[in-house]
Structures are given as C-alpha cells and as structure tokens.
C-alpha cells in the first residue's frame, strides 16, 4: 500500500477524530457547546485505530507529513483521554479532612526534626539576647532593632488608636508575601540534600528568638506575645511543616534506597506536595489572623491569650487526630 492510498483510506476517520477531539477540548463535562453529549466510545475507538495506524505508518517508513499528522492526532487524543481531574469539592474535602493531616503524621520524623532545628535556635537566641541585649546587633542592624521596638511599643501615639482598616489590609498583603515566601524557601531548600531547609529553619528560628528575647528584655513582652501568640499557631506550624517537607526531599536524595536518586526524589515530592497544600492554607489563615485580630489593640491581651490557647489546641489536635479512622 502506498502512502497516498493509506492516507485516502483513513482520511475520513482522522478528520472525524480531529473534530471530536477539538470539540472535547472546548467542552465542559463531555458536552459540546450546544449541550449535546460527545460520543466518548466513538472517540476511544477512533483513537485506538489512529494509534494502530501510526504504528503501521512508522513501520512502513511513510513520509514525515503522514507520520507527523498521526503523531499529533494521537498525542492530542492521549492528552484528553488520560487527563486526571484533581479539582472538585469532594477532592478538597478529602484533602482537608484526611489527606493533609495524614501526610503530616506519615512524615512525623521529619516534622520533629524540623521542629527541633527551628525551636532550639529560637530558645537559645531568645535567652542569649534576653540576658545580653547587645547581641541583637549580631542578628539584625540597629535600624531594624529600633523599628521592632517601635512596632511593639506602648507609646501614647499607638495605644488607644485603632489602626486604620486600610493599614490592616496593607499588613495582610505584607504578611502573605513575606511569610509564605519564607515557608516556600524552607521547602525548596530541601533540594540541596536538605541543607537549605535546615539553614532556613535555623535562621528563621534564630531571628524569631532574637527579636522575642530583645523585646522581652525591653519590657515590651506583653505587646509582643499577645500579638504573636494567636497566629503563630498557624504560621510557625506552617514553617516547620514546609521545612519537614523539604527535609523529606533531601532525605530522599541522600538515601534513595532501592530507587534511583531521581525516582526517589519524584516519589518524595509527590508525597510531600500534600503537606505544601496544607501549608499554603495555613499561611493564608495566619496572615488573616495576623492582620485583623493580632494587631487589634482594643482586644485585651488576656482575651488574646485565651483565644490563642483554643487555636493552638485546635491546630495540634487537627494535625494529630483528624482523619485517623477514615479509609
């Protein structure tokens, strides 16, 4: 059979498949623009035939334009037929209700390690700076230290004046950009054998600790702690979790087990992405709390502490208990 005969013989089928595929491409839920259902069976049958014809055309070394045409047809069909839908309410419900907390528990060793790498520098620097405040200058410059002092000061200008609503919004934007960035870097750093994650975790821990210690020493403890205590339930957890996901990547690269390093990395990133979904949600919640609740000065500190206790309990029990019984 010559290429031209071959083309003539199958031309009709190819055109039909092409038309069906482009309809399917533009359609929603398998219905065409006019609302008529698209014949899936017909698409599948034609697609399989096109695959067969491509194999034949290649085996017979038919001219490039024929093979290219069939290749494109089958590639388009392949993309449409085998695509997975990962969206939808059911999927989201399962992610929140089962998969995220379960993924966190499955990575508990990494979570504990990340927590230690974050918390130990926080405590060490916190106490160091508390007892020797001049050490703050080894972490931040004078200007930053002063601006932190002003931010949490009880000065007359700030106290009693609610921050204007638009400033809250501004801070919300700032928190989102800053904190999610930190978190994502903790994750991405994992690609360097986990060292990047360790560095970012320890660095941010040390920074947080130093600022905390400094402000406590200056007697601004109450403003500072009442400010951070609520949203940190989400924010610090998110940073630790993304660090843990990063450490998982690093571990997969260092100790691939029975896989190649690349396979092992791909597996690890598939599993740890579930954690990152949750981290993004956590950070958005943290930023909203930080901008609209934590910074509100009219709420008495005691009230903030009470709410914070509730929030912390809720977050920890969510991560440890949620979705345990689910199949």
């Amino acid at each position, binding site marked *: 059979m*010559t*290429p*031209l*005969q071959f083309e003539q013989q199958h031309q009709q089928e190819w055109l039909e498949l092409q038309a069906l595929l482009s309809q399917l*491409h533009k359609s929603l839920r398998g219905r065409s623009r006019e609302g008529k259902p698209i014949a899936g069976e017909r698409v599948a049958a034609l*697609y*399989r035939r096109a*695959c*067969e014809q*491509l*194999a034949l055309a*290649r085996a*017979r*070394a*038919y*001219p*490039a*334009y024929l093979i*290219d*045409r069939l*290749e*494109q047809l*089958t*590639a388009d069909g*392949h*993309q449409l037929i*085998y*695509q*997975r839908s*990962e*969206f939808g309410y059911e999927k989201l419900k399962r992610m929140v209700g089962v998969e995220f907390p379960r993924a966190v528990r499955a990575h508990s060793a990494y979570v504990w390690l990340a927590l230690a790498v974050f918390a130990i520098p926080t405590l060490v620097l916190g106490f160091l700076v508390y007892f020797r405040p001049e050490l703050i200058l080894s972490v931040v410059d004078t200007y930053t230290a002063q601006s932190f002092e002003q931010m949490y000061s009880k000065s007359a200008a700030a106290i009693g004046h609610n921050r*204007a*609503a*638009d*400033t809250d*919004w*501004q801070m*919300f*934007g700032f928190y*989102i*950009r800053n904190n*999610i*960035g930190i978190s*994502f870097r903790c*994750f*991405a*750093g*994992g*690609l*360097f054998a986990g060292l*990047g994650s360790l560095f970012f975790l320890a660095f941010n821990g040390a920074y947080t600790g130093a600022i905390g210690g400094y402000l406590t020493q200056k007697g601004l403890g109450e403003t500072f702690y009442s400010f951070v205590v609520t949203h940190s339930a989400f924010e610090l957890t998110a940073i630790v979790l993304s660090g843990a996901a990063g450490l998982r990547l690093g571990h997969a690269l260092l100790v691939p087990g029975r896989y190649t390093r*690349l396979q092992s*990395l*791909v597996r*690890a*990133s*598939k599993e740890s*992405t*579930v954690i*990152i979904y949750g981290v993004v949600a956590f950070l958005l919640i943290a930023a909203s709390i930080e901008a609209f609740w934590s910074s509100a000065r009219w709420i008495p500190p005691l009230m903030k502490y009470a709410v914070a206790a509730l929030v912390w309990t809720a977050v920890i029990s969510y991560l440890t208990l949620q979705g345990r019984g689910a199949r």
Partner: protein
Amino acid sequence: MQQGTSAEVLDTIVTAETPEGILLELRPAGLPARCYAFLIDLLVRLALLYAFEIAALAAGGLGIALTIILVFVLEWFYPVIFELSRWGATPGKRSLGLRVVMDNGLPVTPAASLTRNLLRAADFLPFFYAFAVVSMLLRRDSKRLGDLAAATLVVYQPTPTARIALEEIAPLAPAVALTPRDQAALMALAARATRLTAARVDELAALAAPISGDSGRSGPEVTRRVLGVAQWYLGRR
C-alpha cells in the same frame, strides 16, 4: 522506527510510551527558548503589576494591600495558574510554542505544577537561576531542578509538517529497488525540496541519482527524475 546511532547522539527527543503501545515523541525545549519565554513572562508580569498599580493608587491603602498580594501571586502562582489552564503554558511559553507536560506526555497535574514552581526558589539559587541553567545544560532533556522533582518536561508543541507538494512532477518508476530506509530518506528530500535552494536540491539529488538510473550525472533534469521516483513511492503512478 529505525534510528541511527548518530541520531541518538544528536537528537534530544524523549519518547513516552502510551498504554496503546505507541511511542509519543516529545521534543524538550532547550535553554535559549526557555530563557526567552521567561523574559516574555517577566515583561507580562511587570506590565500586569504596573497596570494594577496605577489603578490601585486611586484606591488608597486597600489598593496598596491588593498590589502587595498581587506581587505575591505573580511571584509564586502566575506559572501555576497558566500551566493548569487549557494551554498548559504561560503566555511566554505559549508565544514560543512551548508547553509543560508530565514525563509521560500527559497534561501537567496540579501537584506537579505546584511542585515545579515552588522549587523555582531552589533553581534560583545561588544567584539568578544559576542552578537551573547548570541543570538544563547538563541534561539532555533540559530539565531544571523543579522539573526533576515534579517529573515534568517543557516541550515544543508539535507543528504540522507541510504536505509534499510535487504535483507537477511526473512520477517515474525506480531503476533499483529501495530499502525502507532509503525510501524514507527520499521522502524526506522530497518534503524539503521546496524549502531548499535549487542548487542545493540538485546537489542532494545527485547523491540519489542511481535510483532513477542517472548515476554520475547531476542537474535540474536529474533532480526532476529523482523527485519523480519520490512521487512514485508516494503512490502517484
């Protein structure tokens, strides 16, 4: 498909097998194409931001907040949003005919898109995407670190090849029987004939002259006869 060793050395094609047992050929995009795509995307992002900022200035504090949020979204999620769209590529990639697919040729999944774009932060280190550049230059499939972890590929969108347009040349029966590989080479020559200069086609056709019984001769007449054999093999008798 028959592939010579030289083609295997030179070609960067990645093959992915479908459940139907056919091999899809994916052509990974190299560093220059992806750099241009990145620069175009950068311009698009800056333009979006600039336009938004002008509008936001009128809105005051809330506007500033939304601008900051937009900066964040453009920084981390601009590629994710576009890659999960119907086109599977950011505007920059689309304008260069590229798209992001999974290693097996399927559309990129949300998880993979998120992974490859968050790991951009690692690719960026130690300065201006140095790790990404090194990784792309070292690998034959031009993956950056994010692509490695997410098992994704940036490939050229296939473009249809032009039909062989030789209608005016009279078909001619071959003087000797051709092996399938020789037939394929002849078809390739016929397909390219209209895009080459006449002198170059003559030169190439002279190499194939034995098939039309013109060994040792060359010139426009020999070219016509060689292309006539191509016509014959195409099926025009």
